[in-house]
């Protein structure tokens, strides 16, 4: 803008900086990106001047006006929400309550979860936004503690490999299951590897502590096919977006996604949708609306489609709300909105967003302390370099920190410390089980050397290279030969792993009953379904609801190093 160095001026020098500034400059948090708000393009967390004002008008049981738009002006999200998500009978009475009154209902433990649901079923997107805008982070957490659907919190892990190595995935899946995760998700670097990696995930998930449900994040149609075959156990990467152009860019509409939801249920397969703040601005068409307003539309599309739950909390777009003021508050609020309309919430804390350990921990607190259906979705069970979802906010190097935080605060993040000998045994056995399955299915062999390496490895760099071309041929043959979950069961049995075979058959048998299709369903290690139907959140203030006690609390007290109080030389584990 300006030019320097006119005749007679002093030459410019860098102003002297303090030593403290230098130290602060070098803190990891200053590697993070921060940006000022720009509402015109939607670069604003939860308070855009262009967000609509709440309104509703119902005629003959039909919503004819919503948030300032008449039916003729509705875009396809408005129409889907008005016709499928909002209870027209409840709408006018619910909308007559002030946002503050509704927010008070959310935080007041004397008002039951069901009473809130009766009101929220009649609220429009703009009204839901107005309600959460009145709440600070602590109030959002208080509300989440009550509104979470399932009483018992759970957790989900990513299990991926930078080399798409199925031997790594089977071992890390087994370890993650042993550590307490109830869902495992994988994805690929090379998509054609998917069948082998999905088989590995499924075997690992049942190898050490059974009942873990698995999924493989792929393009919608392929993901459905693996699910139909029983190679995966549930699905999550069914994305929805908050504006019509971005929804269309994702090659879907609320109707195609609702149909897909029914397709999954028709095969007895659990599924949830995925959405998150920031996706619309990242995809360049937020229509000037705040990230949270658009996300609330996604939440209601999910509800209207009759899907039991939603993965949200910005997810792969976390860098966007993370960069603007109140962005992480908005992320906590979007989780709450999912829970307050009665959906399962798998609450993010997945893609990495900060270089600062303090900041990534702070970002986790609202979900960990309040408890959600899945605190992370997911927690990386592999080192950062192996995480094919572009890293996670938490990874396997944080296991001990997580366990200590659980114990410090007596908060159940659904994980536990496991002694090394048990972990090594589980990793080794899982890899041997996969060796047997691959042999039975005539897939590229797994060597004893690979098994030895993966037992003691940290990541893919510690493992021998596999013959990728042979693996890809094998993966193709899984699809061509129509291999199903039942073939994996037979392979496990043939390989001498009868207990793992029995567990996998038990998981597959769940499809027949459909119990897992209900809100917030997980399987216990005993293969019993736990969902919002038979384990509903009953929080009603101090002394009520889920609190870690008894055997679970004893388990949470164990860490890698705990010394005897009587003899500090002795470790009690």
């Amino acid at each position, binding site marked *: 803008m300006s030019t320097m160095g006119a005749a007679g001026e002093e030459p410019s020098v860098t102003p002297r900086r303090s030593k403290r500034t230098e130290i602060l400059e070098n803190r990891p948090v200053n590697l993070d990106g921060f940006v000022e708000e720009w509402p015109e393009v939607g670069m604003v967390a939860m308070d855009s001047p262009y967000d609509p004002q709440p309104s509703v008008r119902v005629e003959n049981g039909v919503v004819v006006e919503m948030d300032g738009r008449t039916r003729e002006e509705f*875009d*396809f999200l408005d*129409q*889907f929400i008005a*016709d*499928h*998500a909002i209870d027209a009978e409840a709408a006018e009475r619910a909308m007559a309550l002030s946002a503050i009154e509704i927010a008070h209902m959310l935080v007041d433990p004397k008002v039951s979860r069901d009473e809130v*649901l009766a009101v929220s079923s009649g609220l429009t997107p703009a009204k839901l936004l107005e309600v959460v805008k009145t709440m600070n982070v602590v109030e959002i957490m208080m509300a989440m503690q009550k509104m979470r659907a399932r009483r018992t919190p759970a957790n989900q892990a990513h299990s991926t490999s930078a080399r798409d190595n199925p031997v790594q995935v089977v071992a890390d899946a087994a370890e993650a299951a042993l550590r307490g995760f109830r869902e495992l998700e994988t994805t690929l670097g090379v998509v054609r590897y998917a069948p082998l990696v999905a088989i590995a995930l499924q075997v690992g998930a049942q190898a050490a502590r059974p009942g873990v449900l698995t999924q493989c994040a792929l393009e*919608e*149609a392929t993901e*459905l*096919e693996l699910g*139909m075959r*029983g190679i995966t156990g549930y699905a999550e990467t069914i994305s929805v977006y908050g504006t019509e152009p971005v929804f*269309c860019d994702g*090659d*879907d*509409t609320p*109707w*195609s996604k609702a*149909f897909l*939801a*029914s*397709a999954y*249920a*028709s*095969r*007895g397969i659990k599924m949830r949708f995925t959405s998150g703040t920031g996706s619309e601005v990242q995809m360049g068409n937020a229509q000037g609306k705040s990230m949270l307003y658009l996300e609330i539309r996604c939440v209601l599309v999910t*509800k*209207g*489609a*009759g*899907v*039991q739950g939603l993965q949200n909390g910005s997810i792969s777009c976390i860098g966007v709300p993370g960069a603007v003021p109140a962005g992480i508050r908005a992320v906590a609020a979007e989780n709450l909105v999912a829970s307050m309309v*009665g959906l399962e919430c798998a609450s993010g804390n997945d893609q990495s967003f900060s270089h600062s350990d303090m900041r990534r921990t702070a970002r986790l607190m609202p979900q960990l302390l309040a408890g959600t259906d899945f605190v992370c979705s997911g927690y990386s069970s592999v080192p950062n370099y192996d995480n094919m979802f572009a890293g996670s906010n938490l990874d396997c190097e944080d296991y001990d920190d997580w366990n200590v935080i659980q114990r410090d605060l007596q908060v159940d993040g659904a994980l536990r410390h496991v002694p090394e000998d048990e972990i090594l045994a589980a990793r080794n056995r899982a890899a041997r089980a996969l060796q047997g399955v691959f042999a039975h299915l005539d897939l590229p062999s797994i060597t004893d050397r690979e098994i030895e390496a993966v037992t003691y490895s940290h990541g893919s760099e510690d493992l021998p290279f596999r013959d990728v071309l042979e693996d890809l041929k094998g993966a193709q043959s899984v699809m061509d030969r129509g291999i199903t*979950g*039942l073939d994996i*069961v*037979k392979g496990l*049995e043939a390989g001498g792993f*009868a207990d793992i075979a*029995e567990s996998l*058959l038990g998981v*597959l*048998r*769940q*499809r*027949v*009953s*459909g*119990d897992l*299709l*209900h*809100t917030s369903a997980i399987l216990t290690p005993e293969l*019993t*379904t736990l*969902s*919002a*139907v*038979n384990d509903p959140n009953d929080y009603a203030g101090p002394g009520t609801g889920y609190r870690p006690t008894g055997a679970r609390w004893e388990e949470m007290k164990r860490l890698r190093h705990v010394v005897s109080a009587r003899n500090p030389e002795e470790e009690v584990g």
Partner: protein
Amino acid sequence: MTPIELDPQRDYPLASNRPELLRTPTGKRLDEITMQAVLAGEVAAEDLRIAPDTLRLQAQIAESAGRAQLGENFRRAAELTALPDEKVLAIYNALRPQASTEQELLDIAEELERDYSAPLCGRLVREAADVYERRDILAG
């Protein structure tokens, strides 16, 4: 099927509390899906699917638990159990934006209603045809 009154508190999960109500689409009971039967080749992939009647029982449970939309989804799903996998995928792809003309969608709806006794799914597709026309996201 004779109407069965289900109480979510008492009857759910159906696999443990009301197994006598459950059948695979091939008519097997849950306790017939054993490892022995798998190894004897008596269990096929089709046995590990959900039957339409079961989905309607789960719809009842969802509705009794106050989840109307979830119940509706299960009722659409019950209809879709009759469709082969490829057909399901084809209809999903046809519902994507700019993928079908209005007539193509209406033909699918009619096929669902006529050939598969799937009126709820038919209605969803008809609704899509109507909205897609208004929002200009039909093919062509």
